[in-house]
């Protein structure tokens, strides 16, 4: 019985909307835009969250990265041939961090030296990175084959190396790199492991550079110090430049995210106390991501405003057309009332129609929104993800708005005097 009534009301609604097809379509345009904006907003939001998580995974949410930079004043003073620019992080810095900061459990120092590495005739310009055995743990990296550097390698200054995947692919395109030797400055280093490439941060898309993963060769820090010394000679614009840098990068890791901020401040303090030149920069991934999230949130607020305005316009459009429909069908309302319809029957009839109208707009909006979200993800740098509940949510929002804005017209219809309504026209 109830279902029959529902069905009748529903069919009557569909019929009356079908009677005014063009009007119905025009009416729901606002709703289409609104729902579309909601879908895109949610998709961009989810995409941003996904990207942030990926980034955190890569850089480590509990890491603080201190990098050596050439201080600005040295740029003029090192133009002479014999000048040695001494800057950057030192072994003392590393020791101080580990010793004095209670939260710091491990620190990963890295020396980064640009070198040409080779396997026979194949050569590659890449970074040789002297580092410590616990880099993979701190940096959230995995070894694909073989192993990473060990403490024994460190202790005995062994000539071993671990390759990033791109390096392995370039130097050993046709055979397994494991156990092979890589030539650096005339010395040979045995490959003991190959790193697992980092999963691409975004879904593959047209025009995206697919080779932007990490690259380089890892050697024991001790080996690097012994083989390449502390001074780096580079040639630029006709003059030699000598740079003396002990450590290029220190990654400090704390056990929990809550400690990142405090520890970062402490690291900064320590560094500033012992460096009178500004020869380092700090990168806190967590802060970077927070800032990025903030920017995305601004976009989302904008989209949210667009969505809200469109939905409001859509709702008003529906209210407008429903008021017109109520006026047009005054006679019908009178007839129905005379034949025994209660006020609530009239209300549910017009509410059903409003909900159908807005639901129709909502459905179109969902389809258009998903397509647009996909196009944005495909052609722009923004990652968009349409989660399964977002169409359902957006659709419900549209129907709810239709109902909300249909209440007044439906109420007007129900409150008509049946006698007056029957006399109408």
């Amino acid at each position, binding site marked *: 019985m109830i279902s029959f*009534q529902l069905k009748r009301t529903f069919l*009557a609604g569909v019929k009356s909307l079908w009677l005014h097809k063009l009007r119905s379509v025009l009416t729901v345009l606002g709703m289409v835009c609104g729902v579309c904006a909601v879908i895109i907003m949610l998709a961009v939001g989810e995409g941003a969250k996904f990207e942030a998580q990926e980034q955190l995974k890569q850089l480590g949410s509990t890491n603080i990265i201190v990098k050596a930079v050439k201080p600005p004043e040295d740029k003029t003073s090192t133009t002479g041939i014999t000048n040695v620019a001494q800057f950057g992080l030192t072994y003392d810095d590393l020791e101080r961090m580990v010793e004095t900061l209670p939260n710091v459990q491990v620190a990963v120092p890295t020396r980064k030296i640009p070198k040409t590495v080779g396997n026979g005739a194949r050569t590659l310009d890449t970074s040789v990175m002297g580092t410590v055995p616990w880099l993979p743990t701190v940096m959230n990296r995995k070894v694909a084959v073989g192993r990473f550097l060990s403490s024994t390698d460190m202790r005995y200054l062994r000539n071993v190396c671990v390759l990033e995947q791109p390096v392995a692919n370039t130097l050993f395109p046709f055979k397994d790199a494991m156990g092979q030797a890589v030539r650096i400055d005339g010395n040979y280093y045995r490959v003991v492991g190959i790193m697992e490439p980092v999963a691409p941060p975004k879904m593959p898309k047209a025009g995206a550079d697919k080779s932007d993963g990490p690259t380089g060769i890892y050697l024991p820090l001790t080996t690097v110090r012994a083989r390449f010394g502390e001074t780096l000679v580079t040639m630029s614009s006709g003059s030699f430049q000598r740079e003396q840098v002990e450590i290029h990068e220190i990654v400090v890791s704390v056990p929990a995210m809550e400690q990142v901020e405090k520890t970062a401040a402490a690291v900064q303090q320590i560094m500033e106390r012992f460096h009178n030149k500004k020869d380092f920069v700090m990168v806190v991934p967590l802060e970077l991501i927070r800032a990025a999230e903030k920017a995305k949130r601004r976009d989302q607020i904008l989209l949210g405003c667009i969505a809200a305005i469109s939905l409001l316009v859509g709702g008003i459009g529906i209210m407008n057309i429903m008021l017109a429909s109520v006026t047009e069908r005054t006679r019908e309302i009178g007839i*129905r009332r*005379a*034949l*025994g*319809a209660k006020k609530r029957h009239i209300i549910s009839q017009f509410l059903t129609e409003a909900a159908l109208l807005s639901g129709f707009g909502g459905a179109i909006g969902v389809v258009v929104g998903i397509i647009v979200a996909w196009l944005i993800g495909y052609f722009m740098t923004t990652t968009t993800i349409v989660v399964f509940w977002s169409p359902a949510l957006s659709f419900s929002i549209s129907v709810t708005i239709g109902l909300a804005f249909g209440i007044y017209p439906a109420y007007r219809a129900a409150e008509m005097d*049946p006698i007056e309504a029957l006399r109408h026209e």
Partner: protein
Amino acid sequence: MTGIVEISQVWKTYRMGAEDVHALRGVSVSVPEGQYIAIMGASGSGKSTLLNLLGCLDRPTSGTYHLGGEDVSRLGDDQLSFIRSSKIGFIFQSYNLIQQLTVVENIEVPLYYQGWSERDSLERATALAEVVGLSNRVNHRPTELSGGQQQRVAIARALANDPLIMLADEPTGNLDSHTGSDILRLLDQLQAQGKTIITVTHDERVANHAERIIRLADGEIAEERAGRQP
């Protein structure tokens, strides 16, 4: 109280600005079950007002109205709707069919508001379409029917809830005399089957189908006489 319709000392007063307009001034009528009664009177004499009260579309300002023994003069809106859906059949001058519904769907409307099941209501509506001679038009829309056919649909619709009283407001007003007499014959048949019919009309020929004729003037019963003898 013996009549199926008992109204006594009914007043209906409309407030027009500062003035009161008395559309009905103490009207009392008793209609026994099965009677065919016509209400006549000049324009503005209160016929429509009386019919609206009888049809429970409105309430009297004072006085009482008993329909089938139940006092309906002080009921609320929902209760009046219920009375209309269960005890009253309306026939209007301009048919008042719902344009977007088919013949059978129009006949089903009162049943729908009474909460009939889909199957039962379809069955009853189809049967009623046959009673009024439209079984070959059940899926047509009102615009595809002649005036006489539309009025037949309206009569079938008025019969759908098996009402206590049928109220007709100028039922032949929009029809030519030939079609009109067809409709009147149909009403005669219904009365012969025991229906109570109250019709409002200007037309003496229409009124003469009724057994009893009441003439209103200025909101009061001015004359009452017998019509066609049963």
